């Protein structure tokens, strides 16, 4: 079982976390966003092999944060909070 570092609580079991999506998947605002741009935002994921930047939430404390990890080795490279609230 993986140990994920919650920026608020420290290392905790992976079962306490939920995946929140790719980090950097910025939301395009507006009713006239081109449809392919909106589709990419909704559905297109990079699914990298190796280093990945992802948003996770620690369900126990409610903290959303960005975690960098290796999807192949499961090594956790870094974790940081969302930095006071602009789309990460």
């Amino acid at each position, binding site marked *: 079982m993986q140990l994920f570092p919650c920026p608020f609580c420290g290392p905790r079991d992976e079962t306490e976390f939920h995946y*929140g999506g790719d980090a950097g998947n910025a939301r395009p605002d507006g009713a006239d966003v081109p449809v392919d741009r909106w589709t990419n935002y909704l559905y297109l994921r990079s699914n990298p092999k190796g280093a990945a930047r992802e948003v996770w939430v620690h369900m126990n404390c409610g903290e959303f944060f960005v975690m960098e990890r290796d999807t192949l080795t499961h090594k956790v490279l870094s974790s940081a909070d969302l930095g006071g*609230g602009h789309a990460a």
Partner: protein
Amino acid sequence: MTASRLTRGGSAIDRTRPIRFSFDGATVEGFAGDTIASALLANDVAIVGRSFKYHRPRGIWGAGVEEPNALVDISGERTTPNTRATTEPAREGLETRSVNATPSALADRNAFLDRFARFIPAAFYYKTFMWPDWHMFEPRIRAMAGLGKVDAGWTSPDTADQVNHHCDVLVVGAGPAGLAAARLAAGAGLSVTLVDDQQRPGGSLGHRDGEIDGRPASVWAEETVAALVADGHKVLPSTTAFGIYDHNLVGLNQRHFDGRPDTLWRVRPRRIVLATGAIERPLPFANNDLPGILSADAGLSYLKRHAVLAGRRIVVATNNDSAYEVAQAVVEAGADVTLVDIRRDGAPALPAKVRTIKGRALASASGRLRVEGVTLDDGTKLEADCVLVSGGWTPTIHLFCHAKGKLAWSEARAAFLPGDPVDGIAVAGAAAGAVSLSDVFASAEKAIAASGPTKVTVPRSTGPEATGGISAAWPKPGSKGRIWIDYQNDVTVKDVELAARENFVSVEHLKRYTTLGMATDQGKTSNLPGLALMAGITGRTVPEVGTTTYRPPFTPVPLASFAGARAGALMAPVRRLPLENVHRESGAVFQEYGGWLRPAHYGGAGADADRSIADEARRARQSVALFDGSTLGKIEVIGPKAAEFVDFLYYNTMSTLKPGRCRYGFMLSENGVVFDDGVLVRLDEHRFVVSCSSSHVAAVHARLEEWRQDRFGREAIYIHNATSEMATLTVSGPNARKLLETVGLGLSLDEADLPHMAVSHGTYAGDEVRIARVSFTGDRSYEISIRADRAEPLWAHLREAGKAFDAVLIGLEALMILRAEKGFIVIGKDTDGTTLPHDLGSEGPRAKRQTEYVGRRSLFTQEASRNNRLQLVGLTVPSGEPPLATGAHGIKRGDGRLHSQGFVTSSYQSPTLGRPIALGLIERGAARHGETIEIQHLGKISSATIAAPCAFDQAGDRLHA
């Protein structure tokens, strides 16, 4: 074979404590300290089981976890199938049975199958039972397949403990390498946990010669364990490290042997030392599976630990140095011994009194139910009642591989050894290929070198040293006779050859096609010989063939250990109402709704539920109903940006809501689909309460937090989930106001002060109460929220005051009827994963809103604008017909076929209207009111007329009545 107990010796047994247990119905006598296997051997029980496929007689092979043959089902104190007799302590009164044998291992009635062996090779089933249909054959084959029998009627009276544990160093294996590593790590000031699957630590020191620091090896082992315990370190015997998982979490299963279930340990060590030893391999010769043919190391172990001599005329067959010590020991114990070594030279000094034949291999063994003799490859025949075999040693690298360690082939050792190191894991001792005690201790020192200087000196081997000379003796293609590779799964050399002929040459395919390395032993003795044979057949090297994937668990772990307390009511615990017990006293019948245990109705157990529910729904419309709505979400959104925030989260504009007022709205997902509906309450300029569906509270809370943290910032908004802090008691019906006036909540109930969709505050018994005029029934309703721990007196007061109005307690089922009469939806029931807000008749925000909100862009796609979308409607049936079935499809005809045009989502008999009512999602339904369509359910066709969703009080007068 005439195995017997010697009159003296046996380091593990206590001759003052005789015990008796049964095997296949016969009594077996032994001593405390025996395993089931050692006691069976001492009683000369040769046949202990039948093989999986051919029902061949099988005897004990090993003395540890690798045992492929000697599996027993245990009943008595605790029913456990497929237990290895070699690791299971014999205990007074145990009832044990051989597996895959009826009525007994000795007289198995399926033994005839062996005579048909050449007709049932590998993959026989796949090829034979194809026509006409596998399912025709499946029941009978399934009945014959499998090993032990599960007692389906047995349930554990208690639950397994689960322990989370942290330490600096976890050492797996308490043989010489593990003991040395543990002691050195302790000397470096680290906290150490040492686990070993045997009852007595020491590993090979329990039966192999050795002298350490001038003392007998077994004495050194005991002293080392005592020193660790005295220093406060944890030593867990009878505990198997069965798996290493992500980030080096180690799973342990600890046995107790006192009637308690096993204990599961989840260990998070900083470092892991794997001192897991090595497992002896068989040699390939025809009929090498006969009872009486044992691993040489097992023969030595039974002799030294249990004083059991496995035979009188023993042939020791080997390709390596390690069997010489065994030959010496059994000859000294009184056996007539011949040692056959495939090597001509390079071996250790010949043991005294042992007849030795060099440069020869065993070609075959003979005997009907047990071994009676062997034939060498030059035709020499030797009588034997026991053959002790050593085909070399396979390091136990399973855990290393669980941790994604890669293996490196060693030609010199004829084995895979641990390759490049894995972070946080070191391998020591025989598992790393060390043979002599000096090498073992050097590897232990290296394993903990990273932990800093240690105050303990490295142990020194002061006695004779083992040597590791070996000449590989892999099974060869084209060999004569039936040569077993995998005892447990009945895989022979010919089966591997067949797999290769049919091009199943990858190890993973070989495993699945022949079952080599499957089942309870997972090929601990057979994997390497099997893949070496495949290498020989296909002209590749062993490392080119590679190994199959090692996966946890190393040995079988009871499901009870993994389950722990998560069974029965604790499997998925329900959430409970603060007033649950009060409702029970009122006759509530509880059901689970979205994770909450709530009153379905108040008719009492054994009542006609449908009648109780109809009665509650009817009476609620007549006077006044009391309902416990405490599960309703109450999530507070507080802060200067709160209004901007709820605007973004809701489909409906919420910032225009005035303080003290409520508004109904939808939350959408980013794909536009309606995610939740509910009422938003604005308490003041900067404070809202999100009143979401009961089963959606956690999800709505998470979504609010996500947008808060990932868009708006934490500084200007605070979110607090107050759902469980407050109970919400609902008073609904024409007489709701009159009832509340008699209770006295310290506020004005006048229409001007508390109109529909307004909120106000009062007090009850000194506590603040919040009262919202919100209705899910269509009648005048008051939702009263009060501290959960003070709700009981208020509920009692409401019920008492209600008597004058013939008030009725209603459960969730009656509420479902009331809301359906009004056409009020339940998200997820009356909507699905494609329903957009305008499908539900809420077109306004989509048409008019200029500001951004979640899901907005998705409402303007081609799909969202499709003109034949499913839309919310009411459905009425012809007079006298029963209610429609929920899930029934509206159909239309075309191309000679039926096509769905939507479906029924809610359907009830309305006691107030005296007719069935239903809601549904029907194609273009909003524009088709009055149209009659066909409805199909389970092949039966009826009709229904499309109507407005609201079937009762369309003008809404009752809200204000």
